């Protein structure tokens, strides 16, 4: 086995935070490479601190290493200081487990969670010594693979990816491993033919087997297979039962500081709240809960094994987990935890019920609570289908301040479809009212408003919406900021909307953006998700050089008949469902959560003959968020579907 450790070691003395390149984590794999094993290098195209906690890569690494025909290690993007040293010394990208050169693996597999990491993917492939374009790769070069949420529109990266895996990776990773192991033993003949073979595996998309054509006006005509083995439409993978996959069994415990440095236990996958801006909620349907007893076991064994004193129960909306109160109580009261274990929920429901759970968890350290109403007025929240009433928010805030919390943080989006200045200013109005509620209980309550610019995402009802311009987003942020100055206790934070332009460009872009990504990468534009490294000028120049317009891609509304670059990829959602939901949004009509109400046939269950796996037929006690109505009685369709005519898009 080869290791570049002895070449790397002297370089580590010269760089920041060298501990992120040494591996040695508790739970790290002890990989056994062999000619009959397909070797994966699971790579997160950002720094170790961001990438190590990624649960998807940890799950897949474990599953492959349990197989007799596979072996897996991990890599992360080296920060620019180490990259410079590596390039100068001729040291390639390496795995952190055995410091093996990346080019010696059979598969370089990337998690794509954020569009702004695309240039890092190219950089990692290049640092591995592999040609960045698929067309330039030799038969025995590693296969470059991608999975994760961004792969629901991987078209901007089509020139660089050999294969893409849509949806849950737990099953697909095994099938790909078996195929690659057999191909490897045969001496890796005829890469193109092998890729076509892989395209027959459910959920596997091979971009080179498709061709995109364009209309004279520049819009996409269609993306069609040019190989008989490639399906017209690639369907995502969906595991039917999360209980069959209790991974990670050995969560990695890093030796140095990372984000989310705690035990993470995924309590369910999928979400049917139906928030129309939320890509994660659309593409991960249906809801599949982990059995509560398995959650308890994973928590208690995980805490004992890792020595962590904090566990996060993760999902897209953890308070909706059936029996969440019992599970939380059991963890907090478990005597073996020494009374020192903290439970954290990544998101809190905006009502008194959510605060009740928080109160159970945070007996001490009641500093701040975070809620995400997402929009400032009821009208706007109907458009986005985040059906929190003002009363829900105020009761949550009242509960928080009266029980000792001193700071409340509220998350909002701006630049939403149909948003008026009244809606935007409604953000400040809500925050001001929350401060006033706080004054009844606290000397100096504070409310922090965090505003992010909305970026429309593929496979959501808002995929047809033209994103607000950079200038318009900045104007709205300024509106909020200026209005908030008049109210003591309201503090405003915002994200720089410049980066949202490029996030939007990649999010809904097509194959023609490949040349743009490559040019930005070649000119040093890596780590674009780090604000201090983001270079809007590189992107706009590269777009101009490619003869493309940023405005056309990002700010233009799409029409119903327009072909979208991801039309040949399916998250199970019917296109007419999404279009109807878009019309409903414009008509300010809400849609109920189908977990507890009749099905409205979005396609995610019926298309794959699977169902929601939810332990309780009724929503959590007191639950109202998601429908604007009290669902405690259970069962009844709570939202009146108005028959108002849809509003046209300008």
């Amino acid at each position: 086995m080869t290791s570049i450790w002895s070449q790397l070691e002297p370089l580590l003395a010269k760089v920041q935070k060298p501990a992120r390149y040494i591996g040695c984590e508790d739970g790290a794999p002890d990989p056994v490479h062999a000619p009959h094993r397909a070797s994966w290098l699971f790579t997160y195209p950002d720094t170790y601190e961001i990438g190590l906690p990624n649960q998807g890569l940890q799950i897949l690494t474990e599953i492959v290493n349990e197989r007799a025909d596979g072996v897996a290690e991990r890599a992360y993007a080296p920060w620019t200081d180490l990259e410079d040293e590596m390039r100068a010394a001729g040291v390639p990208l390496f795995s952190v487990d055995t410091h093996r050169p990346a080019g010696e693996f059979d598969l370089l597999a990337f998690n794509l969670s954020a569009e702004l990491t695309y240039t890092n993917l190219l950089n990692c492939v290049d640092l591995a010594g592999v040609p960045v374009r698929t067309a330039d790769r030799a038969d025995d070069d590693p296969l470059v693979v991608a999975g994760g949420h961004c792969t629901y529109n991987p078209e901007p990266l089509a020139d660089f990816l050999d294969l893409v895996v849509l949806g849950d990776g737990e099953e697909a990773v095994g099938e790909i491993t078996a195929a690659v192991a057999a191909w490897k033993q045969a001496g890796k003949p005829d890469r193109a033919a092998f890729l076509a073979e892989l395209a027959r595996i459910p959920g596997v998309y091979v971009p080179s087997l498709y061709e995109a054509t364009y209309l004279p006006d520049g819009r996409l005509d269609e993306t069609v297979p040019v190989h008989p083995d490639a399906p017209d439409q690639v369907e995502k993978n969906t595991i039917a039962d999360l209980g069959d996959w209790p991974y990670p069994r050995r969560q990695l415990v890093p030796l140095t500081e990372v984000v989310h440095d705690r035990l993470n236990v995924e309590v369910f996958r999928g979400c049917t709240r139906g928030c129309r801006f939320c890509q994660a909620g659309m593409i991960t349907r249906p809801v599949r809960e982990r059995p509560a007893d398995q959650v308890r076991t994973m928590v208690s064994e995980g805490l004992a094994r890792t020595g962590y004193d904090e566990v996060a129960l993760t999902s897209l909306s953890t308070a909706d987990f059936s029996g969440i109160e019992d599970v939380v109580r059991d963890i907090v009261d478990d005597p073996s935890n020494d009374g020192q274990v903290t439970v954290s929920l990544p998101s809190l429901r905006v009502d008194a019920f959510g605060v009740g759970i928080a109160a159970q968890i945070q007996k001490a350290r009641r500093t701040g609570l975070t809620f995400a109403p997402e929009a400032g007025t009821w009208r706007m929240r109907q458009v986005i289908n985040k059906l929190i009433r003002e009363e829900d928010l105020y009761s949550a805030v009242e509960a928080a301040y009266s029980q000792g919390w001193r700071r409340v943080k509220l998350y909002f989006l701006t630049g939403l479809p149909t948003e008026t200045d009244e809606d935007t200013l409604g953000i400040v109005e809500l925050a001001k009212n929350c401060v006033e509620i706080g004054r009844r209980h606290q000397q100096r309550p504070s409310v922090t408003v965090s505003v992010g610019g909305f970026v429309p995402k593929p496979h959501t009802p808002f995929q047809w919406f033209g994103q607000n311009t950079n200038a318009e987003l900045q104007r709205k942020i300024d509106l909020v900021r200026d209005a908030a100055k008049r109210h003591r206790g309201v503090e405003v934070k915002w994200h720089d909307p410049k980066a949202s332009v490029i996030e939007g460009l990649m999010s809904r872009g097509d194959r023609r953006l490949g040349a743009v990504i490559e040019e930005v990468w070649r000119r040093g534009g890596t780590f674009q998700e780090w604000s201090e490294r983001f270079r809007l000028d590189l992107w706009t120049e590269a777009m101009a050089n490619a003869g493309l317009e940023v405005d056309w891609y990002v700010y233009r509304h799409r029409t119903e008949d327009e072909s979208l670059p991801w039309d040949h990829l399916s998250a199970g959602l019917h296109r007419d469902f999404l279009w109807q939901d878009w019309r409903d949004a414009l008509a300010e009509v809400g849609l109920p959560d189908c977990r507890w109400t009749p099905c409205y046939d979005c396609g995610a269950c019926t298309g794959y003959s699977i169902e929601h796996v939810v332990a309780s037929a009724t929503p959590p006690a007191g639950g109202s968020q998601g429908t604007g109505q009290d669902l405690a009685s259970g069962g009844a369709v709570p939202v009146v579907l108005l028959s108002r005519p849809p509003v046209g898009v300008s």
Partner: protein
Amino acid sequence: MKLRVRYSKLGKVRFLSHRDVARVWERAIRRAHLPIAYSEGFSPRPKLHFGLALSVGHESVDEYLDIDLREPVPLEGLPEALSDCLPVGLDATDVAELPPGVASLQEAVDLVVWRFAVPAGSTEGVERRVAEVLDADELLIEVERKGKPQQLDLRPQVASIEVHDLDGDDDLPPEVSDLATAGGLAVIAELLTRPRSVRPGELLAALGLAGVDVRVRRLHQFTDTDGVRRPPMAETDADPAPALQGAG
């Protein structure tokens, strides 16, 4: 009950920072089910007390840590139990109960012995410069204090420096000579910690070795009372040799 633990930090984990090591210890203590005491107050913290910080990239075979426990525990087998809960390269080598009133590690240690492994190819002139430093009355270096450059004289804090060949000619203990640098040198320096700890890098710069890939390893920490040196904890019979296989 208070414990003092002696441990080593060798190999890849030498790149961990002082804070990283503290976090690793907190988790190891929980995994080993030691009944550690927590501070009172708004956000309770486990009561761990570390000695002089070891810089990122430096190794050691003589680190110490004090732990406050809520209740007594048997000490037998404890170093091994703790090592099992620590990553490769961090190993507990000894544990002793700390009698009440013992000085903290920061107060107790006033002399540190360092090993600098100078690779072959960078050894020229090292012996001469060592002799010059030892002969000199002062060894001035420039440091920055509150944003202003200031001169410091290191010489009074350099107790001794020896130079050994790493070729195996010398009968060196394994913690000094394990590094496979044929033709290299081992510089052993005894540096005082008061009034201000001499940083290994400062001495290396004075010896013309700035920018050279020198492997730095702490060999000993001592309390020096009128020339009598005592380690921060009494040697016990159960003292296992530091695990050097972690060094690479």
